[in-house]
């Protein structure tokens, strides 16, 4: 189902609906280095989302069997050394399985290379290998940081990290997941050990979230989404577990739609709907004078709700478009892709001035442009400057004729 909607400015209810205020899935955007030959950069300055390759066996993941013992941070129900490792292996497998069983995507279990292990605690690093580390100290850990993922992406073809060489622009060359080590107040429990360790964080959901980053996701403000940035407090996890009938059960529709956008199945016929349009101010004089060329509202949050269920199916940050050879045009365009066909949707746009502010989504906005200031020698014909997010508008929606 394709519906084109044009949204024009001036007050109505949606900006008042700040309790929903969920910006949806977002990705790290990479602008190809067009200073390189077209054979390496593709020749276009249009942003590309960071992504893994999705061919058979192309995503390899390993995990370090070195576990902190003093203090012990990974808690399992089986306390024998072999049983402990087996239990963690199951958690890693299960968490990977969540992301590789979503209908309408090209990520399947065959996309994953066999899961392997490595012994050293400090196995995470920029080596071209995707690794999960449970006992590797890192200066980035400060109080309140439970886990994080370092994702290294290439802006050209032929870039090398370790033995991995990029064959696509935006390819993730290395994604390492670090769990907070050596902190007696922060422990992580496997699902079977969680009930007997109520002060622990749920290892499986944290790892599933971090694996989302390893696949190219940024954070989502949809509270039910796996990519929501905050963990429930210890002892409060009540999320859904994957089951044999529904391996992707822990994901929300927002996560699934994001995955389809990143790793769409070319043979899919169900999730091929899109909604697109532009957000324009009622008064063109309200557009910013600088940088030049801004012709629409930038930074609006546009959300699609399934009319029947009321579920947030997808959300995007609108306000720009890009056609090769680029650069990005700030013309107010938005597009919601990979929606299931045969449904009706309600679309609303809101300014990022309520429960979500530009700083929450800066990762998805500030990386849209490169220019001679950020990158010496950048061609002026493909340069742009990201304007300030327009936080002053409110909206009404008019279906197109």
């Amino acid at each position, binding site marked *: 189902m394709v519906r084109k909607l044009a949204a024009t400015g001036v007050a109505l209810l949606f900006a008042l609906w700040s309790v929903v205020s969920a910006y949806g899935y977002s990705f790290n955007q990479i602008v190809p280095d067009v200073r390189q030959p077209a054979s390496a950069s593709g020749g276009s300055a249009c942003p590309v989302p960071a992504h893994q390759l999705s061919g058979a066996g192309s995503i390899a993941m390993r995990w370090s069997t070195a576990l902190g013992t003093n203090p012990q941070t990974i808690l399992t129900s089986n306390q024998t050394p072999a049983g402990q490792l087996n239990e963690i292996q199951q958690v890693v497998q299960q968490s990977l399985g969540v992301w590789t069983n979503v209908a309408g995507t090209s990520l399947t279990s065959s996309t994953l290379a066999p899961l392997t292990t490595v012994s050293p605690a400090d196995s995470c690093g920029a080596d071209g290998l995707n690794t999960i580390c449970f006992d590797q100290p890192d200066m980035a850990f400060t109080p309140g940081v439970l886990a994080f993922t370092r994702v290294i*992406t290439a802006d050209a073809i032929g870039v090398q990290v370790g033995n991995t060489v990029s064959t696509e622009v935006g390819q993730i060359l290395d994604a390492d997941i670090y769990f907070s080590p050596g902190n007696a107040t922060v422990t992580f429990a496997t699902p079977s050990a969680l009930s007997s360790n109520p002060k622990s964080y749920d290892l499986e959901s944290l790892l599933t979230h971090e694996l989302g980053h390893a696949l190219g996701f940024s954070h989502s403000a949809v509270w039910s989404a796996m990519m929501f940035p905050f963990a429930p407090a210890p002892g409060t996890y009540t999320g859904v577990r994957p089951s044999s009938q529904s391996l992707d059960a822990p994901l929300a529709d927002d996560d699934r739609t994001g995955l389809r956008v990143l790793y769409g199945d070319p043979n899919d016929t169900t999730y091929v709907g899109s909604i697109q349009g532009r957000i324009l101010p009622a008064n063109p004089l309200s557009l910013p004078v600088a940088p030049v060329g801004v012709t629409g509202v930038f930074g609006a949050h546009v959300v699609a709700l399934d009319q029947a269920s009321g579920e947030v199916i997808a959300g995007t940050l609108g306000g720009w478009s890009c056609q090769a050879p680029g650069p990005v045009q700030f013309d107010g365009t938005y597009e919601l892709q990979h929606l299931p066909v045969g449904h009706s949707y309600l679309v609303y746009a809101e300014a990022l001035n309520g429960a979500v502010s530009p700083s929450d989504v800066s990762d998805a906005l500030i990386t849209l442009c490169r220019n001679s200031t950020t990158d010496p020698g950048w061609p002026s014909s493909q340069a742009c400057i990201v304007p300030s997010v327009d936080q002053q508008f409110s909206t009404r929606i008019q279906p197109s004729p």
Partner: protein
Amino acid sequence: MNYVQRRRFLWVLFLVGMALIAIVANATTLARLHFYQLVAHSSAIARVRCLHADTRVENGEIWTDTVFEVVQRDKGFLPSVIVVRMPGGKYEHLTSHVDGVPEFRPGEEVYLFLTGQPGRQFYVVGWSQGTFRIRRNARNGAETVTQDSADVPVFDPQTHSFTKMGVKGLPIDRFMEKLTSEIHRQSL
């Protein structure tokens, strides 16, 4: 959109809100820190002005070092210029990205809750949670303070409701009062 459609739309929006409130947030990365915890974990707290940022590679990892001028020191010892290190950054053809890491623009003023030692780099406690941005009203010059993580609600399992516990749009004098009083309370 006619009247009936609008009414249906409002109902759907209402139901969505209720559904979202009923769902427990799933995942990860950061653990909530209360304001008193942020103060307790910080070796230094200061109002700082961003001067510039540089990307560097150390031990094979990409880091961004942001240089700040200290405008006002509220806790701990700080030199007049400090370097705050965060993971990630852009180096040659590689972009190292870590979600949740705050970024700063030259000229921007923020309150930072820091851990570290003078003479070395500092780190922001709880990343977005230890970052409080100062906004100045262009018309009257009034300053307000907003915590980067203020917009993300937290689920309270006892009341089965979401609450926002961060600092958002707080007038700067009230923020200073809150900060000073907590520092004083913890020094007793």
